[in-house]
C-alpha cells in the first residue's frame, strides 16, 4: 500500500497552510518545526507523507512526480504551466493566500492611470531610443499580458530581491508583481493601473496526472482529502441554528415559520418535539436548520415572529453534499476530459 505524498509550502506560507488543513480536520505531525518531512493524519486510509518545500518549487516537484499532490499559489501554477506538463489543478480555490499579480507604475507617472496609457508610454520611450523596462518574476504571464494589450516594446528585467524596489533603484520603470493589500506598493511609491490585473490568485491544490492515474489507492486517498477540503470550504459561510418554538404540532410550527418567511435551509427545517423538564400547558418544538451566514439575522427575526424564544447558532464545521464535486472533476481530467477542477468548483457554487 503506497502512501499519498503531499508537498506543502514552507516559509511564509506554512502557518496559513497548516491552519487551513487543521480546519479541514487534517493534522500535520513532525518531530520538530525545522523538519521538512512530516506525516499528515486525519484521512481514513492512513497517514500521508508530507514534505515541506518552497511554494515556487512545488509546481516542479508535482510535475516531476516526486510528490502526488501539492499546495501552492495559483499565480505560480499559471506562470509555470506548459501545454505538455503533468500537472492538474485539483482544487483551484482553497480560500487562503488571496492575492493578485498586477502591473504597477511609479506614483509620479501622473499621466498613467490604465494599461492603455502604458501602450503609449512604451511607444513614446521607444521613439526616444529607450525601452519600457518591466521588473517581474513572472516573465511568461507578464509578457503575454502586455502582448495581449498591444504593448510590444518592453524589456523584462530580472530582478534579484525586492521587485517593488526596482523603479526606485532605476533598474526598471514599472513592475509586475504580487500584491494582496497594496501596502507594499504604496510604501514603494507605486500604484496599480486600471485593467492591470494579470491574474487573481489564491492557494490551490495541484496533482500529478500520471501518478494519480497509475495508483487507485492514492487516488482514493485524494478523494478523502478533497471531501474534507470541499466540505470545510462549503461550511465556512454556513451556520446551523436551533430555535425552540411553542405550537400545537410540528406541522403548525412549520406552517408558521414558513409563513414568517425564514429558516428554509436547503430542504426545509427539521422540527422535533421538546420534552420539557417541567410540566407545561404548551407543547414546545425544536427547529434546526442550516442557513447561509448572510441571512442569519433576517432568519432570527423571522423565527421570532413565529414565536421562537431563544435561538442558538453554531458554526458548521463541514457541509458534505451527495458527492465531491472537485473529485468528480478530477476524475474527468484524469480520463482526458477538459473540465478543470476550477470550473468544477465554480459550477457547484453557482448551482
Amino acid at each position, binding site marked *: 500500500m503506497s502512501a499519498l505524498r503531499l508537498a506543502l509550502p514552507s516559509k511564509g506560507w506554512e502557518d496559513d497552510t497548516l491552519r487551513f488543513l487543521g480546519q479541514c480536520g487534517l493534522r500535520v505531525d513532525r518531530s520538530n518545526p525545522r523538519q521538512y518531512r512530516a506525516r499528515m493524519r486525519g484521512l481514513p486510509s492512513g497517514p500521508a507523507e508530507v514534505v515541506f518545500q518552497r511554494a515556487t518549487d512545488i509546481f516542479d516537484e508535482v510535475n516531476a512526480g516526486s510528490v502526488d499532490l501539492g499546495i501552492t499559489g495559483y499565480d505560480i501554477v499559471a506562470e509555470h504551466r506548459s*501545454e*505538455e506538463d503533468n500537472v492538474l489543478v485539483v482544487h483551484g480555490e482553497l480560500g487562503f493566500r488571496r492575492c493578485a499579480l498586477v502591473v504597477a*507604475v*511609479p*506614483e*509620479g*507617472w*501622473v*499621466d498613467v*492611470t*490604465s*494599461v*492603455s*496609457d502604458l*501602450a*503609449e*508610454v512604451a*511607444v*513614446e*520611450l521607444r521613439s526616444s531610443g*529607450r525601452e519600457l*523596462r518591466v521588473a517581474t518574476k513572472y516573465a511568461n504571464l507578464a509578457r*503575454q499580458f502586455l*502582448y*495581449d*494589450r*498591444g504593448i*510590444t*516594446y518592453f524589456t523584462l528585467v530580472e530582478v534579484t530581491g525586492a521587485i517593488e524596489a526596482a*523603479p526606485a533603484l*532605476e533598474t*526598471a*520603470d*514599472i513592475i509586475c508583481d504580487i500584491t494582496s493589500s497594496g501596502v507594499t506598493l504604496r510604501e514603494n*511609491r507605486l500604484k496599480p493601473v*486600471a*485593467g492591470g490585473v494579470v491574474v487573481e490568485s489564491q492557494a490551490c491544490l495541484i496533482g500529478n496526472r500520471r501518478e494519480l492515474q497509475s495508483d487507485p489507492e492514492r487516488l482514493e486517498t485524494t478523494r478523502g482529502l478533497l471531501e474534507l477540503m470541499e466540505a470545510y470550504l462549503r461550511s465556512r459561510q454556513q451556520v446551523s441554528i436551533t430555535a425552540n418554538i411553542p405550537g400545537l404540532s410540528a406541522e403548525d410550527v412549520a406552517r408558521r415559520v414558513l409563513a414568517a418567511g425564514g429558516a428554509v435551509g436547503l430542504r426545509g427545517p427539521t422540527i422535533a418535539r421538546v420534552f420539557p423538564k417541567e410540566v407545561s400547558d404548551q407543547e414546545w418544538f425544536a427547529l434546526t436548520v442550516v442557513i447561509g451566514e448572510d441571512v442569519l439575522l433576517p432568519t432570527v427575526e423571522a423565527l421570532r415572529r413565529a414565536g421562537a424564544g431563544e435561538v442558538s447558532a453554531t458554526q458548521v464545521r463541514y457541509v458534505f453534499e451527495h458527492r465531491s464535486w472537485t473529485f468528480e472533476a478530477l476524475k474527468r481530467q484524469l480520463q482526458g476530459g477538459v473540465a478543470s477542477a476550477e470550473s468544477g468548483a465554480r459550477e457547484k457554487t453557482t448551482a
Partner: protein
Amino acid sequence: MLGERAPQTIQRVRGTTDVLPPDDARLRTLEANLRQGFERFGYQGMQTPIIEPLELFLRKSGDEIVARMYAFSHWNRRLCLRPELTASVIRAYVDQLQNHSLPLRVHYGGPIFRYERPSRGRSRQFTIVGLELIGASGAAADAEVLHLACAGLEAIGIKRYRLVVGHLGAALQLLAQLGMSDHAQGLVLDQMEPIARGRVDPEDAIARVVSLLGGGHQSTNGAASDLPPGLASLPPEQATAIAQDILSRASLPVEGGARQPRDIIERLLAKARRPDPTDQVRAAFEFVGQLHAAAGPPERLASQLQPLLVRRGLSTAPIDEVVGAIDLLRAYGPLSAEAEIEVDLSLARGLRYYTGLVFEIYVESDEGPLQLCGGGRYDDLVRALGGREAVPACGFQYGVERIDLALPQNQVAANRRVLVVGVSAADHALALEVARTIRAIDGVVVEQDVRLRGVKSALRYADRAGMQLVVLVGERERQEGVVVLRDMRSRQETRVPTRDMVDLVRQALT
C-alpha cells in the same frame, strides 16, 4: 529503487509535424515546382536564417504576429523564430542588396513559426514559398505578382479557387481622416481580419480596441471637454510649463523610471485634449463593415464601392489601382475558367506593414474556405527597416502544407525500385558492382541488401517495400557470368547474362 526503467519516449513539440516518407518527397517536389515557376519570370532564389533578432518583427509586423512569436533570450540577445519571411527578406535587402539594380526579383521558401492553437491546416511550424518584387510600384507590378500567385497554383493543378483582392488605401485614408493615432490605426487594422472572417463579433472588437485605447466606460481619463477653457486654448508649451509649476509647488513628485517630469506632463495634457476614442473606433469599424458588405466581383466595383468612398470625401485611387491591376492580370492570359475574382476593400492581412493592394487566394474544403496564398504591397517597410530611401515592394507567400491538402491526390510518381541481393556474404562485392551498373539507368532507384540474412528474408522485404524487381547474385551465377532477375509482380525468375543485364532490367521495369 525501481530498478532499471526504460527511458521515456520523447514527444515532438506540440503543433509540429514529423514529415515522414513518402510525404517528404511529395512536399519537397511541390515546393520545388512552385519555386521553379517563379524562375521563368526572372525571380532568383534566396534564403534567410530561421532565427532572427526579435526587433525585426517588432518594427512593422503588427501586434497579432508579435503576440504569437516564439521569442527567447540567448546569452542576452533577444531572438525569435521567424513568424514570416517578408521582413527577413527586406532586412537582407537593406543589409546587402541596396546597390542592386531595381527591380529586384527574389523567391524563397522555408519554415515559419507561430504559436497558435493547432488545428487541421494550422500548425505551429509550417512551410511557405513566396516571392518579393522589390523596387516597382503601380498596377503593372501588382499585376505581375497577382499573376504569379494564380499561375503558380494553376500550374500544379489547382484550377478552382477564389482570388480576393483588397486595398488598404480605403481604410487607411478613413482612419487618418478620423484623426486616429498610429497606435489606434494599428489596433483597428489588427481587428479587421478577424472580423471579416467572422472569428470576432464586431461589437467585441470595438470594445476591445476602445479599452486598449483607454476609452469607453472604463475610462479613467477626464474627457477633453473637462479641461478648463483657458488651459485648453493655451499652446502646449505654456500649458506644460504651468502644470509643471503647479505640481512642483505642491511638491508632488512627477517622475519615475526613465521618464522625465516634462514627458509626463506633456503626455498628461495631450491625453486630456484628446477626445474619447469610442466614436472614432465605432466609425472606423462601421466603414470597414460597409466595405465588406459592398464586396463582390470587380464588375460591380464602380456602382457599389465608388459611392461609398465618394460620400466620405475619400480618394477613389485605391479602386482605380485594384481595377488597373485586375485588368492587367487578365492581360497575362485568361485565368482558369473555374477561378473567381472578388474585390473586398475590407481585406486586411494579419501583418501591419501593407500599404496598398492586398490579396488572398482560397479554395473550398470540407471544413470551409482554406487559404492557400496571401500577399500585397508594402511600400514603407524598406524605410522602416533602415533602408536609405523608401523603396516600393510587393510579394506573396503560399502555404505549402495547405496547398498539399488542397491537391486531390499524391501526385508524385512512384519511382521504379530494384533490390540487389548477394546470396551469401562472399557475393556482396559483386552485388555492389551490379547495383552500381543498374543505378546508371535513369530514374531507377536501386537498394542494396545490407542485412545479409539470406535470399528468403531479402525477398520478403522486397515484397513489403513494393520493389518491382530483385536482382540475385550467387556463387553459381558468378561462375556462369549471369544474374537472376526476379519480377516481384509475376514472381518469375530469369537467368540473364551479365552483359545483357542493363537492357533486360530496363525492359522489366517498363
